[in-house]
């Protein structure tokens, strides 16, 4: 392990967190390379968290220019037009992030993520995508899975008071402490495509195994998780069908979204009342991120990535949903049968 030791500077800077996850996890972090696509408030939070944690490098991809919406939940962009004019979101965020921790290499890659080839992704250990279409998510997840090395893939989205994380670690080996012993574990994940193809009506049954002991709360939890998942699904599909850019829906689209929901529910033989119109309406009319939810989702995603890199502790499998209106965070395992837990 020569040359692998943490430097004095690292030990001083990371003192408090080494006490949480140990020196070996810190060493692994410092060698990890992260790719992020699509920078909104939640991703800004995530980037801050992993840059502070001390990853090896962070590569940002987002060629969009600054809009009022981009400013609304993103603290990485200085609110000065003289500074941000003519720069892309990725460039601006890169400048701020570099400042947070000089020991992390932060850089910008230009281009559309879906056009990058498989080879491009081989440089990374973790890929996080945000604000992109259902098709792009599937495509990138597939490319990551084609590589011989195991790449951790995450999607993250926040709308209004709701947030969602999807995780694909393929085959993940890790250790965890059980009482005094350290045990080795292994988890197999479904791809994004497999996970979202799981028929909706089968979800409650699967979930009920997890919540065996809690009948009363159970029904409620299941319902809520599904609602968020389905809402996101409905919106994703709407964007796909209509050829919209992600998040580009407004109140005028509500009838269309509701119609699609009806069709989806019929196709999935699911009672329509499972997806309340009111919640859909809320997400359609207000697709903006709510900063406290960005902090929560970005914090949980940051911790998940640190877990995946360090190989320590049970990782999230495979959906996490949060709604600030009731303060609930739910982990739901939605995997296809052949990769079931």
């Amino acid at each position, binding site marked *: 392990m020569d040359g692998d030791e*943490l430097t004095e500077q690292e*030990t*001083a*800077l990371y*003192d*408090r*967190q*080494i*006490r*949480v*996850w140990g020196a070996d996890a810190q060493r692994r972090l410092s060698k990890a390379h992260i790719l992020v696509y699509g920078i909104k408030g939640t991703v800004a*939070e995530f980037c*801050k*968290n992993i840059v*502070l*944690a001390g990853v090896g490098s962070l590569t940002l991809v987002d060629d969009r220019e600054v809009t009022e919406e981009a400013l609304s*939940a993103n*603290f*990485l962009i*200085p*609110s000065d037009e003289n500074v941000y004019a003519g720069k892309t979101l990725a460039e601006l965020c890169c400048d701020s992030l570099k*400042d947070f*921790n*000089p020991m992390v290499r932060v850089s910008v890659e230009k281009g559309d993520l879906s056009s990058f080839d498989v080879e491009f992704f081989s440089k990374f250990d973790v890929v996080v995508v945000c604000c992109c279409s259902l098709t792009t998510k599937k495509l990138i997840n597939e490319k990551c899975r084609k590589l011989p090395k195991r790449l951790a893939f995450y999607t993250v989205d926040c709308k209004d*008071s709701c947030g969602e994380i999807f995780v694909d670690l393929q085959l993940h080996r890790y250790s*965890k*402490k059980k009482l005094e012993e350290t045990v080795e574990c292994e988890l197999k994940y479904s791809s994004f495509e497999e996970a979202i193809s799981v028929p909706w009506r089968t979800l409650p049954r699967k979930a009920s195994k997890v*919540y065996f002991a809690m009948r*009363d*709360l159970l029904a409620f939890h299941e319902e809520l998780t599904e609602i968020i998942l389905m809402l996101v699904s409905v919106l994703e599909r709407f964007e796909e069908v209509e050829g919209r850019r992600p998040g580009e829906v407004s109140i005028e689209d509500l009838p269309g979204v509701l119609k699609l929901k009806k069709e989806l529910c019929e196709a999935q033989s699911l009672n329509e009342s499972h997806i*309340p*119109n*009111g*919640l859909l*309406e*809320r997400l359609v*009319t*207000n697709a903006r991120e*709510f*900063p*406290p*939810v960005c*902090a*929560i989702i970005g*914090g*949980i995603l*940051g*911790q998940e990535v640190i*877990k995946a890199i360090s190989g320590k*502790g*049970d990782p*999230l499998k495979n959906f996490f949903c949060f709604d*600030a*209106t*009731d*303060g*609930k*965070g*739910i*982990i739901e395992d939605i995997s296809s049968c052949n990769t079931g837990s």
Partner: protein
Amino acid sequence: MASENHFSAIKGAKVLMVGAGGIGCELLKTLALSGFQDIHIIDMDTIEVSNLNRQFLFRQSHVGQSKAKVARDAVLKFRPHISITPYHANVKGPDFDVDFFKQFNVVLNGLDNLDARRHVNRLCLAAEVPLVESGTTGFLGQVTVHIKGKTECYECQPKPAPKTYPVCTITSTPSKFVHCIVWAKDLLFAKLFGDKNQENDLNVRSGDAASSSDHVEDVFERKNDEDIEQYGRRIYDHVFGYNIGIALSNEETWKNRNRPKPIYYRDIFDNEPTQQNGNVDRNCATNDPSSVSAMASVGMKNPQDVWSLKENSRIFLEALKLFFMKREKEIGNLTFDKDDQLAVEFVTAAANIRASSFGIALHNLFEAKGIAGNIVHAVATTNAIIAGLIVIEAIKTPLSLEINTNRAKLRDIIEKVVKSKLGMSSPSIMHGTEILYETGDDLDEDLLASYAAKADKVLSELNCPVVGGTMLTVNDLYQELRCNINIKHREEFDEEKEPDGIVLSGWTQAPSSVENNGTKSVDNAGSTSEGSTMEAEKNDEIEIVPGKKRKLSEVSEDVIPSNAEETKGKEKLEVLNGDDDDDLVMLDDGDSGADKKIRYQ
């Protein structure tokens, strides 16, 4: 929740943050992004290097500066038009009295100690301002809401007392490494370098032995002409050899324990006529006493390595020598400080040598420093999540209404506040379970007459008096709206500025929202009307009224069934997902009316 009318409602609020550290940095950022425009922040601390891994508003170049001030400047870079007022001061100072606290709609704590938390709690109770309290340790964190008369206060639940150890465990029978640390830090270090007049139990066990107490006093004094190396060896032999020998003579003690082994200088440095002492010159590069290091002068670098007994002995002697050679002026006044490198080295080495005597596993400097300094584990992610939850709670805190309860009538509240300011058309007003007022077509005339009579009564003279500290719940069934109003009694009002004799603060006067195609929004956070602490009641969602009894919302992969029973009065978010790498202690075992916990890895 994040709707436009909510944003504009938040704008009117004035919030006080106490603490600009780990939670504070995250909180200030999230408050600013969420639209708060008037934030006051108190922190007496200055920035240190070990803060930089999570207190992201600070840089290396800020080390030594005021946390509150630097945090303000950093946030103004992305939100230049809001008002942030920093105070580089102790929250316990006289400037921050009840009147100071009264000006805020809500107080948000991001503190690191029990003492200050209790102080802020008491002032919030006195000023009748809602308090959102928080804490994190490693992956654990929690948020609790404390509203006078409505929820438990911060001190209603006993807090775990700091761990203490019996004196004889420390002086004579250590069985854990922490006992050796306490001995090295509180007894040996204090005896050699601290206030000589302080009582010290270091030699308590040798008092009944042959040596007189006069002799004991002499042992730790360096004689006028005594060579520093010789003095070091004498101290070494006394505390690790002689004292253990004395303790061993008390046979009773060792009947059921492993007997310790006395360690003398000659046992360790057997064949070395003079000790290979470190090169003090390596420390000469700087004259800064805080950078003096025994590790550096004996050529050891990695704080993660566990030193051998011999290495520990070398560090011990070197550190002792360096204190006398480089920091002699401080001797007699030193107290242990986790940021004092030489002190940490000395304590680590002394604790390890003692641990060797007693057959206890040795620890490296990094670990020893954590134990000796009571260092709280901290990561950015937990702080960020907790800060998010604090803001969500802060937005939910109730409206407050200042009114003269000895003069104003119930009708004033109905007309001037509920109908005109909150825009309710068919309101009902509750005081606990007592209905003060209601409207509706199906009410019989007697009832209506009694409500009319009540409406003309002075607030404090009602059967169920409305006075300072009362919480009223206002409901409009047609609007599916509900909110709480915190009453504050005030004697005098400015006739020009406050002609109505009322001051309503909180999230008021939000412009009415877009009428959404006639469909009623199910958003329970105010998109249906003006005033946004209100929460619509819906059949498919749990009702959450700030300060009222809440149902459990605890979710995780491994939901803990036992908690299902104790759901009332507690909101708990628990993302329990992994191993407990560390012996983590909940900072506060809050159990109040609105309580959120995150347990996360």
